[in-house]
């Protein structure tokens, strides 16, 4: 059977399922992109709606945190080190980003790995190196390893601003929201690599919501959708693993151990979801010399920020990108107002690139 015939067969099986209208949500920036580029939404039957959940780490980082980052970037002798996407994210002051501040004399560097930030600290002892630790369970182990390396190297000029978040508390908060209307989750394959199939079992066991762990190719996602549809059709709720080539039932224990060594759960502020108890990871007291918040006395408080940007509604599945009044006019990838447009993995950027 050719690939195309296989696709058609799966899609007709999805279309023939007697399930009415359902919403399925992915919670991974790479899934968002893969769905957008493949045009999956347009080939699925109209009763299946795909939503992008809070799965892009840049998109869930709130204005309050970006304001703190941007304030730090203009301090003398500070070098902000970050993964690429963070460079273009504004805070509550539109137009001010790490990139725009770089043009005005701030020193911001893009790295591929947290270890690059440690190396920079080693060769630049006269500067304070602040690494923006952003991401979910997938980047947390590497960030932990960077802190441990900095300890071993005896560095006095390296710290991590932990913006790390964990997936389970966010999904729980989302499920608890009024009007929550999702019948199945396409679970993120790379987070599952770390937390294992077991990390998603609560969805089925406590909430009777099916989940399928999926890889990032369009056909992985299509198969995941098919399996979710089957579960909904037969009233089942299980965690299935479509991404068996990388995900073990128990995940990667060594990686989880590294997270546990350096970080502990803390309350964390999410764009669109607000403060979620124990959904973030902060650096333990034992490593406080490497904690940017402790080092610079930073306290991030929720603000009452009024903005027409609907990124928050987009990542909680309440709005499509096109429902936002700014989308495509006052907010484009070239001049983004909100993080869902900044990040190439954001729902708005994906919708803009592939639909406009």
């Amino acid at each position, binding site marked *: 059977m050719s690939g195309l015939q296989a696709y058609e067969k799966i899609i007709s099986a999805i279309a023939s399922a007697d399930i009415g209208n359902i919403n399925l949500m992915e919670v*991974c*920036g*790479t899934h968002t*992109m*893969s769905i957008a*580029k493949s045009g999956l939404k347009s080939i699925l039957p109209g009763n299946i709606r795909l939503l992008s959940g809070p*799965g*892009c*780490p*840049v998109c869930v980082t709130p204005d309050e945190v970006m304001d703190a980052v941007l304030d730090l970037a203009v301090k003398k002798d500070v070098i902000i080190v970050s*993964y690429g*996407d963070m460079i273009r994210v504004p805070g509550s002051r539109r137009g001010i980003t790490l990139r725009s501040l770089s043009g005005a004399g701030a020193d911001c560097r893009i790295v*591929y*790995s*947290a*270890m*690059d930030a440690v190396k920079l600290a080693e060769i630049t002892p006269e500067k304070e190196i602040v690494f923006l630790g*952003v*991401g*979910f369970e*997938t*980047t947390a*182990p*590497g960030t932990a*390893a960077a802190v441990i390396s900095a300890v071993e190297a005896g560095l006095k000029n390296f710290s991590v601003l932990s913006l790390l978040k964990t997936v389970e508390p966010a999904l729980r908060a989302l499920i608890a929201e009024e009007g929550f209307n999702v019948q199945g989750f396409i679970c*993120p394959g*790379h*987070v599952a*690599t*770390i937390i294992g199939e077991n990390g998603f079992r609560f969805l089925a066991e406590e909430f009777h919501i099916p989940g399928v762990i999926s*890889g*990032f*190719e369009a056909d992985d996602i299509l198969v995941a959708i098919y399996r979710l549809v089957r579960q909904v059709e037969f009233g089942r709720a299980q965690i299935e693993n479509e991404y068996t*080539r*990388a*995900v*073990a039932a128990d995940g*990667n224990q*060594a*990686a989880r151990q*590294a997270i546990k060594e350096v970080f502990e759960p803390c309350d964390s502020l999410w764009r669109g979801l607000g403060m979620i108890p124990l959904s973030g990871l902060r650096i333990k007291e034992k490593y406080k010399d490497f904690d940017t918040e402790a080092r610079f006395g930073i306290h991030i408080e929720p603000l009452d920020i009024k903005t027409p940007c609907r990124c928050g509604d987009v990542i909680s599945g309440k709005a499509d990108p096109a429902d936002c009044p700014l989308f495509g006019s006052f907010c484009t990838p070239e001049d983004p107002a909100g993080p869902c447009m900044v*990040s*190439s*993995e954001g729902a708005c950027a994906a919708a803009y*690139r592939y639909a406009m």
Partner: protein
Amino acid sequence: MCLAIPLKLIEIEGNEAVGERDGIRRQIRVDFIKDPAVGDYVISHAGFAIERLDKEQAEENIAAAREVEQVLREMSAQ
């Protein structure tokens, strides 16, 4: 950011390793892989190997990663 790529380990020294794909070499860490060996395929995410893959699975993933990178290149060229 969450995009992880499959690489073949061609050099290992302690927790530092060199991963290779399509002739491109990348310095990665293998802290989280038990007994890594030269010739193993791993999924690398933000500079760290997060899981080992068997050879066939890795080749499948590599083909998919090429496709995604092609799209990213087209996007950034726009």
